[in-house]
């Protein structure tokens, strides 16, 4: 169905494969800042129409450029009140985070431990911007914290979902219990459809002890009373996605 090498970001963590040069080449070059509400206001690329019923990863990737995947991803999240920003580097990502935390008045950040390990440059940049942050030691650390930063395994253009598969419960809680959740998605992990996401989810599930994962699509919501939409009923009230081209 899906070639293993199709999902590089995922494979680094759960599988023995490595990203092939071929699939990197197919993705082509990336423009610097693209998204539905990018920092400098650019909006690049119309969403492409993908026939999800027929799509396999290989088939789609030959025609769909990764920029278009990011655009489509952002397009799907637009009606769900999710802000999507695409940045080229960890430095720019840190700038977005620090600006956003000032905007919402968050005194400090709770950052998934996995992200701090994987992106030391991001941490250095955050430190130099004077933002205080901590990694959660347990679930309670995230309870009603104003701003939490998580790392997605991959992003799904078809639905605007992010796959969350945090290695620890404490990291998982960042996306469940904070008031505002910023999710970092690496550009190279953007996949066209749920089919590729399912391949990654399945590989995780087939680990000897299984695993816990979720596809998260927008902020927590309910419409239980008169179908009137309320956000943040149990999970985060606000979700922002930062797509980073070269996370380091």
């Amino acid at each position, binding site marked *: 169905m899906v070639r293993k090498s199709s999902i590089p970001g995922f494979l680094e963590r759960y599988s023995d494969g490595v990203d092939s040069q071929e699939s990197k080449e197919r993705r082509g070059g990336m423009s610097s800042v693209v998204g539905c509400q990018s920092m400098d206001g650019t909006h690049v690329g119309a969403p492409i129409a993908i026939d999800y019923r027929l799509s396999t990863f290989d088939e789609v990737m030959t025609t769909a450029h990764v920029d278009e995947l990011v655009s489509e991803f952002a397009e799907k999240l637009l009606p769900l009140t999710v802000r999507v920003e695409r940045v080229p580097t960890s430095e720019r990502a840190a700038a977005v985070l620090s600006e956003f935390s000032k905007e919402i008045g968050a005194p400090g950040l709770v950052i998934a431990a996995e992200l701090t390990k994987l992106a030391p440059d991001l941490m250095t940049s955050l430190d130099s911007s004077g933002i205080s942050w901590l990694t959660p030691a347990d679930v309670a650390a995230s309870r009603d914290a104003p701003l939490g930063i998580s790392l997605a395994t991959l992003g799904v253009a078809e639905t605007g979902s992010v796959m969350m598969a945090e290695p620890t419960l404490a990291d998982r809680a960042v996306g469940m219990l904070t008031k505002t959740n910023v999710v970092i998605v690496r550009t190279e992990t953007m996949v066209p459809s*749920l089919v590729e996401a399912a391949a990654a989810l399945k590989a995780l599930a087939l680990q000897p002890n299984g695993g*816990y994962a979720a596809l998260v699509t*927008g902020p927590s919501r309910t419409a239980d009373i008169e179908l009137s939409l309320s956000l943040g009923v149990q999970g985060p009230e606000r979700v922002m996605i930062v797509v980073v081209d070269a996370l380091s």
Partner: protein
Amino acid sequence: MSVATPAEEARDVLAHDPHGEPQTTFSARYTKAISNPRLAKNITRFQHTWRGNRNRSMEDVQFEELRKHLKVAKTKITDDLDGYLNQFIAMVERTGATVYHAVDADAANRIVREICEKHNVNLIAKSKSMVSEEIDLNHRLAEHGIDVVETDLGEWIVQKGGERPSHIVGPALHLGREEVGALLNRVLDRPVSLTDIDEQVHAIRDELRPVFFNAGVGMTGANALIAESGTIMMVTNEGNGRLSSSVPPVHIVLAGIEKLLPTWDDAVTQMRILGRSATGQRLSVYTTFITGPTPGHEMHLILVDNGRRKMHSMPEFVDAMHCIRCGACANVCPPYREVSGHVFGHIYTGAIGLVVTQFHHGLDAIAKPQSLCLSCNACEIVCPSSIPLPRQILDIRKMVVAKKGLPGPKRLGFATLARPWAFVLATRIGSQAQRPLQRGRFVRGRHIPILKTQTRWRSMPALAPRPLRDLVKRQLTVATGAPIVPNGAAGKTVALFPGCMTERLFPEQGLAIVEVLQALGVRVVHPEGLNCCGLPANNSGDELHARMMAQQTIRALEKSLNGTKIDYIVSGSASCVATLAQDYSHLFRYEPGWKQRADALAGKVLDFTSFLDQVAQLPAGSLTGGDATLVTYHDSCQGSNALGLHEEPRRLMRDVLGIEVRELEENTLCCGFGGSFGFDYPAISERLLNRKLDNAQATGAMTLVTDNQGCIMHLRGGCDAAGRRIQVKHIAEVMAERIREHSSTVAENGESA
């Protein structure tokens, strides 16, 4: 409705009331619901919004393709239930989670209790699970001092209000903000707004927050069990499912065995169709996949049978195992809109509730609610698992009738209808007896006490002075001439199946069909010995008389096919066509001989509209007339939902006749006729009728066209009773008028030339 004996009423009581609400009978619940105007308002708003959201969300997928795939996947499960179950269990157990089998509700409750007792837990944070409602978990555990707190917002509201969920997906959608606000002010220690929904939601959020941290056990349901990896797929929008399955140290999953899916491919299909069907979302906010326990935590998985294996063993009902609990069947159901799931269903509500309840809670629990289905088939159209819900509900109805019998008047009615001599006699007597109350084509009785409830809001049709079979004789002897316009039906021979209503109430519609067909160069025969097709008996659960009438019909049609070469059997009644072409095959499923005969006939049966569209294929503009006419069209349930007609009648009127068709709102919604439904539930029938007529009038058209005699009778009766000026016509009558106009123009032109 028949008057229930006290013993019957006692059995009818909602035995599984989870919240200790005073137990009520069906009749009491029905009366309460129908006299609460706010209830229908709340559900109507919900159904409207859902329909719009659902249709919009389906725009970027192929619904039919998706549901075909889901059907294949679910059929694999029901074809090899134990094989997939074993695969799933082995994959779960390898992760260190514990798997339990619960044969019934008691067993499931006991397992949960024992896990709680082992861990000394007296507080459970639970996310939404219909299985927990099915087994009455909250109530049963409360008896042992274990407090189960519902953490889904809607579910929490109904729990606090001492109610049960009225809908599979939206437990509290029968309530408005004022009602929720009043409840919150009663149960919380702080004042909460009666109008600000956001404030209400956040008050409940604050209430629930500590529960996740204080609970020793978190419980969830499952939306799918993926066999190939032992994964539980769970869908929520609020995020309470993730919290319930993550924060407390022990996680218990309750799942019905029918939730199995073979592979992740199938899970993708379910994801794509579930959110869209349930809430009109491309994907619900949190789709969680749990394979084994979180490190350091425990996970227990309880697989619940509780009647499912019996469902699985019955060929009539095995498809109900394919349900993914999206609630769509309730969201399109016309009677549901008026009474809510507290009346339309038992614990499981909506059409699927009418089907599965007997397996979980016994036939008595659904004996009364099942009578609320008016067989409009709207549910089957939107069901993502293509469950033949309307047919299954009729099979449940037949079981109820077999057990409890039919009410006297119905029994007598069908016994008469099934015997041609008795039917003729009854119509003779009827045509005399109706005279004192007859006003033109109607019988009015709104001033007579015993008839008042039935005729105040719709006049009954008067029996025609002479039946169609007498009137049509002369017309049939006329030799068929050249067609007035070239068409594909010219030269064909058609046997007319008028249906009993056309025969006795509206013979002019039968004549119109003959007139149209003859004008198109079709030879028409009117088979001898036709009576009723059996639909009224079949829809009332009277299998005995349904079979009798079906056999008579098959014999009569076969006889006429024997002598002459008949190309098609055509009827102006979409309902009769659905019965002949679809229902007979199921009715005779255990009698191969009759089934074969029914299937052979079914291939020749066509409704009038399809015949003109598919066979005659009249060229566009070939029968346009002088005056611009404006009509509106009511899609009859059988025409649109059973036969799949939608564009066909419009093509005919718009393209061929050049008539402007202005669409009425909710054009495929039932008019409220439903055979004897109007007699059983006049209050609901009246509301549906008036909604339909209001919508028709709002178009500004003075003519309402449709393709089914039942609807016509109902709609005309409603117009007469309310003094509405709108005219209701069969599409054949519209065609016949145009053909007459066309012929006289041709004749005049011919003379002048």
